C-alpha cells in the first residue's frame, strides 16, 4: 500500500472551477487516508503545473500521485513523464476525470462537488494499490513478408528493401505484375502500363535484399508483432528457373492449347507458357492441370525435347519454407465481379458482352489481338460500343453497395483509345454520376466528352437484347426523360471491384479482420488506413478497398513506412498492463485459455502461462477464472474493489 499519495487538483482555468468547489475538494482530499499532500493549481498540464508536481514529489517524498483534471485520454503520458522524472514509477499515476465526466456535465451544485470528491477518492484508493511496473521489452526480427506481387507489393517491398531490411515477396501466380500488368495504358496520362511497371519489377527482382517466391502461398502464420513465423508453400513450376533462358522453343512444341487466364479467356496459351513478354521472373511455367501428363505418368515430353538447356523437370515437388519476420504486409490486390453475375445482360449466352479488364487485353499490344480492338464473337472491328458504368457497383440489392472509384476513369480512357483506333466509331457511355476526383482526372474526362462520336448518356442499362448479330441496349436518358434503344457491336461492363480470390482463407490464417464486403479491415478508417487491427500486420493497395494505381502506390509506401517505423527500434516496448498469473492459485481449468481473443494463454504442466507479446491487457480472462488467479496489472481486483468502495457510498 502506498501511503504517501499526492493529490493535485486542476482548475483548468474556469472549466472545472466554475462548477466544482476546488477549495472544498482540496480540503476533502487532504483528509483522505493515505494522502500526504493535496494541492490545486490553475493549469496542471502546463510546464509550471508539471514543475509544481515534480517539486512536491521531492519535498513531500510522495510515492504515488493522483491528478484530478481532464480525461486520461488527453494527458496521461504527459503526467506519467512528469512523475517519472521526479523518481516515481509512471504507473503509480492515477487520473480522476473531473472535467469531461463531472464539471462539464453537471450544474454548479454541492452534489457536483460531492461527485468530484468521490472520483478523487476512487483515484486515491486505486493509486494506493498500484505496483511499480516496467515496460516489457521484446526482441524484434527485422525482416518482412509481403504477400501479393502486384504494384502494391512491389512498391512496399522496394521501399523496405531500400531501407536495408530483407523482404520475402510471396506471389500466388507464376510471375509478378498483378492487375496492373494486364492493363494497356493508364489514365490520365495514357502511359503504357507495362512500360512504367516493368522497371519496378526488374528493380525488385534484382534487389539483393528481396527474395521472390512465385507460385507460392502463405499457409500458416504463428507468433505476433516482432516475431512472426510464416510458412510459405511453394508450388512446383516444373521448369528449372536457373536453366530456362526464356527462348520459348518449348511453346510451339506443346500440343495442348488452353484459354489464357492472363487474357481473361479471350486468348489461348499452351500448357507451357509465359503470361506476357515482360513477365518477371522471365521463366516459363508448365501448367500440369492442363498438361497431357497427369500425375506421375509422363506420356508427352515434347517440350522437354525442344528445350535445349534441358530446363524441364516433370517431377518437381511442392516445398515449404518457414520464414521469421517482424511484420507482414498484405497486398493481395483485387478482382472484378464475375460476368455471370449479370443475368439481365445475358453474358453467358453472348460473347460480345465483356468487362473492362477484358477490353484492356483487347487494347494491349501483348494481348490476344495484338492491340487491335476486335470483338470476341466474329473478330470484326466493332463500329459502335456501349460502355455500362456502375455494373454491380452502387447497387445494394443485386451487387455491391460501394463505388469502385476507378471505373469512370478507365471507361473514359477506353472510349478515348477506341476513338483513336476507330475514329468513325460510335461510343455510348451509360453512367449515373461521373467521379473524377484525382489530379488531372476531371480535365481528362472533359477532353473525352468533347470528342465527337462519344455520347455520355445519364442512365442505367436495363437489358441487352441480341438482334441479328448486334446487341440492342435498352437504357434510359434521365436528363431527357426518354427511353433509349441503341444498337451496338460490343458492350463493355465496368464491373465492380471485389477482393481477390482466397483472401478469406489468408485472413483466417493471419488472423486479420475482414469487413462486410470482404476487404481487409483497417485499424481506423481515417487515422490508421495502412494498419490492420492485428498489430504488426499492415495493408497495402486494393486489398483494403478500391483505389487507383497512384493511391495504391502511396498506400503501399505508407505501409512500408509503418514497417520501417517498427524496425527503427532495437526492440519492442510493450505496455506492462498485461495479465499476470499467480501460479499458486491456478487450478489449470483452462477457462482462461478459451476466453482469450488473442490465444495468449496456454497451459504448461497444468498451470496457465501468459505470452507477454500476445496479451493486450483486456482482462476478459480475469472474470472467467473464479479462482481469481490471474489479472491485468493496473486493473487488478483489489484496485477495482477499492474504487467501488470509494464510489458507492
Amino acid at each position: 500500500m502506498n501511503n504517501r499519495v499526492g493529490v493535485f487538483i486542476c482548475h483548468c482555468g474556469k472549466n472545472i472551477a466554475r462548477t466544482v468547489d476546488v477549495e472544498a475538494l482540496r480540503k476533502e482530499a487532504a483528509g483522505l487516508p493515505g494522502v500526504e499532500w493535496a494541492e490545486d493549481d490553475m493549469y496542471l498540464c502546463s510546464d509550471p503545473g508539471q514543475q509544481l508536481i515534480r517539486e512536491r514529489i521531492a519535498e513531500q517524498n510522495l510515492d504515488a500521485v493522483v491528478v484530478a483534471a481532464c480525461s486520461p485520454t488527453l494527458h496521461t503520458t504527459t503526467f506519467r513523464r512528469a512523475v517519472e522524472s521526479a523518481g516515481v514509477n509512471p504507473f503509480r499515476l492515477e487520473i480522476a476525470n473531473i472535467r469531461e465526466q463531472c464539471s462539464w456535465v453537471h450544474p454548479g451544485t454541492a452534489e457536483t462537488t460531492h461527485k468530484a470528491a468521490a472520483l478523487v477518492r476512487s483515484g486515491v484508493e486505486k493509486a494506493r494499490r498500484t505496483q511499480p511496473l516496467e515496460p516489457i521489452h521484446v526482441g524484434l526480427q527485422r525482416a518482412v513478408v509481403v504477400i501479393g506481387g502486384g504494384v502494391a507489393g512491389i512498391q512496399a517491398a522496394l521501399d523496405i528493401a531500400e531501407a536495408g531490411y530483407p523482404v520475402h515477396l510471396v506471389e500466388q501466380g507464376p510471375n509478378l505484375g498483378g492487375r496492373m500488368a494486364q492493363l494497356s495504358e493508364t489514365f490520365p496520362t495514357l502511359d503504357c502500363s507495362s512500360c512504367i511497371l516493368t522497371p519496378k519489377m526488374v528493380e525488385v527482382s534484382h534487389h539483393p535484399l528481396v527474395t521472390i517466391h512465385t507460385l507460392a502461398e502463405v499457409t500458416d502464420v504463428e507468433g505476433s508483432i516482432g516475431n512472426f513465423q510464416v510458412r510459405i508453400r511453394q508450388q512446383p513450376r516444373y521448369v528449372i528457373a536457373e536453366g530456362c533462358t526464356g527462348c520459348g522453343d518449348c511453346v510451339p512444341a506443346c500440343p495442348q492449347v488452353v484459354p489464357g487466364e492472363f487474357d481473361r479467356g479471350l486468348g489461348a496459351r499452351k500448357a507451357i507458357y509465359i503470361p506476357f513478354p515482360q513477365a518477371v521472373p522471365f521463366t516459363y511455367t508448365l501448367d500440369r492441370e492442363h498438361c497431357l501428363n497427369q500425375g506421375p505418368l509422363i506420356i508427352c515430353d515434347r517440350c522437354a525435347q525442344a528445350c535445349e538447356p534441358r530446363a524441364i523437370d516433370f517431377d518437381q515437388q511442392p516445398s515449404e519454407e518457414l520464414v521469421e519476420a517482424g511484420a507482414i504486409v498484405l497486398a493481395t490486390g483485387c478482382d472484378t465481379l464475375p460476368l455471370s453475375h449479370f443475368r439481365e445482360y445475358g453474358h453467358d449466352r453472348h460473347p460480345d458482352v465483356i468487362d473492362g479488364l477484358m477490353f484492356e487485353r483487347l487494347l494491349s499490344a501483348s494481348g490476344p489481338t495484338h492491340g487491335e480492338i476486335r470483338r470476341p464473337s466474329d473478330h470484326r472491328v466493332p463500329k459502335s460500343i456501349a460502355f455500362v458504368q456502375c455494373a454491380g457497383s452502387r447497387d445494394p440489392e443485386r451487387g455491391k453497395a460501394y463505388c469502385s472509384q476507378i471505373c469512370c476513369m478507365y471507361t473514359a480512357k477506353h472510349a478515348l483509345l477506341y476513338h483513336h483506333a476507330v475514329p468513325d466509331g460510335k461510343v455510348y457511355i451509360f453512367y449515373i454520376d461521373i467521379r473524377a476526383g484525382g489530379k488531372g482526372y476531371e480535365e481528362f474526362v472533359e477532353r473525352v466528352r468533347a470528342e465527337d462520336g462519344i455520347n455520355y448518356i445519364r442512365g442505367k442499362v436495363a437489358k441487352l437484347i441480341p438482334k441479328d448479330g448486334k446487341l440492342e441496349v435498352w437504357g434510359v436518358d434521365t436528363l431527357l426523360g426518354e427511353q433509349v434503344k441503341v444498337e451496338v457491336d460490343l458492350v463493355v461492363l465496368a464491373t465492380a471491384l471485389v477482393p481477390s480470390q482466397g483472401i478469406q482463407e489468408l485472413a483466417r490464417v493471419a488472423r486479420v479482420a475482414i469487413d462486410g464486403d470482404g476487404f481487409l479491415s483497417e485499424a481506423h478508417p481515417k487515422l490508421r488506413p495502412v494498419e490492420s487491427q492485428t498489430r504488426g500486420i499492415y495493408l497495402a493497395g486494393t486489398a483494403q478497398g478500391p483505389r487507383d494505381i497512384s493511391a495504391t502506390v502511396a498506400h503501399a509506401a505508407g505501409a512500408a513506412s509503418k514497417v520501417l517505423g517498427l524496425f527503427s527500434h532495437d526492440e519492442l516496448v510493450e505496455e506492462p498492463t498485461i495479465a499476470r498469473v499467480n501460479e499458486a492459485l491456478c487450478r489449470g481449468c483452462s477457462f482462461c485459455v478459451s476466453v482469450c481473443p488473442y490465444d495468449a494463454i496456454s497451459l504448461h504442466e497444468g498451470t496457465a502461462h501468459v505470452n507477454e507479446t500476445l496479451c493486450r491487457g483486456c482482462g476478459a480472462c480475469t472474470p472467467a477464472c473464479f479462482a481469481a488467479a490471474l489479472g491485468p496489472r493496473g486493473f487488478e481486483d483489489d484496485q477495482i474493489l477499492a474504487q467501488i468502495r470509494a464510489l458507492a457510498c
Partner: protein
Amino acid sequence: MSLPQVLDRHLRDLFGSGRVNSVLGAIPTRGPLGMAQLARTPEEVERFTLSPLACPNLLVHLTSKEARLDPTRFPLAVLARGCETRMLNQIFSEHGLRRDQVYVVGLAHCPGAIDPRRLSAQLPVLRGFPEATIEGEEVVIREESGELARLARTELVLERCRHCQNHEPLIDDYRFDLVEEADWIEPVSVDEDPGVEAIDAMIPIERWAYWRSQLERCIRCHACRDACPLCYCENCILERHTPCWVKRSVNLPENTAYQLLRVMHLVGRCTACGECERACPVDLPLGLMMRKMENLVREYYGHRSGLDPSGEHLLSIFDPRDTTATARLEQ
C-alpha cells in the same frame, strides 16, 4: 446387502491387476443415508452396497483437499450412477482430474436414490438396517420382519432423481445394471419443479422476503461449498481477505454476497446434484438457486453441463446469436 457377485469379483480383479489403488463406494449405516467409503484393499470391497438408501455424496472425495493431499488413492475406481458420471464429465472438462485417474464403474438402469429426509418424513419410526428396492413407480421398504411399506417413488427419491435425464451412465469403463434388463422400466422424469416455479411466480418483494428469511439463517459454515465436487479452489475467494470480496461478519448482506458469488462461480458448471442443499445444517433451499440457474443456461444458451468430457465453459465462450434482453436500451 453387499455387492452382487459379478460386481464384487470385478472390483477385486481391479485391485489384483493393479489397475486401481482404491475403490470409492457407499456402505450402509444405521438409518437411511449410507456413507462414502474408500476401500484400499480387496477385502474392504464386500462392505459396499448398491441400496438406493445408501447414496451419499461420493464425488466430493475425488476433488476434496484430502484427495489432493493423498495422491496415492489414484487411480481410483468409483461406483457412479448416471448423474455422477455427468459430474465426472464436468470435472474432466475442467481438468479437475485427468480421465486416466478414474476408473468409472457405471451403474446403469438407475431407478433413483431415496431422499433420507423425505423417507423419514413419511416413516418416522424407521430404525436398524432397512432394505429398500425400487420397482417401477413404487418403493418397497423391508425389515427383517418383512415388508414394512410400499410408497410412491416420486415422493421419496432425491430432487435430482425426479428430474433425472441420465438413467444410464454417460461414460464408463465397466457397466453394471442396477435393475435387470428384463424388468427395467424407464422411470418417469418429472419436468415441473414446484419450488422454483413458486418463486418465479412471486413479485420481487415477495421473493426477497422469502430469501431474506432463508439467508438470515445462514451460519457461513461453508458446508455447502465443501460438499460441492466442483469447489476445489486452492484458496477460495470467499475466504480471502486481500482482496476482500466477503467480510467475515455473519449477517444478511455478507451472507447474501457469499451465496451469490458461490452460485455465480458454478453457473454453467453445476449439474444440480443437490449435495449443497443436502449438506446444509440449517436446511437452506440452495438447490432452488442451482436448479434455477441450470434451467436458465439451458433455456438461454442450450447449455447442459457435464455432457461432454471436453466441453467448453459456458461463460468462456459466446454465440453470435446471444441477444438476450440485457441491452434493453437497444429495444
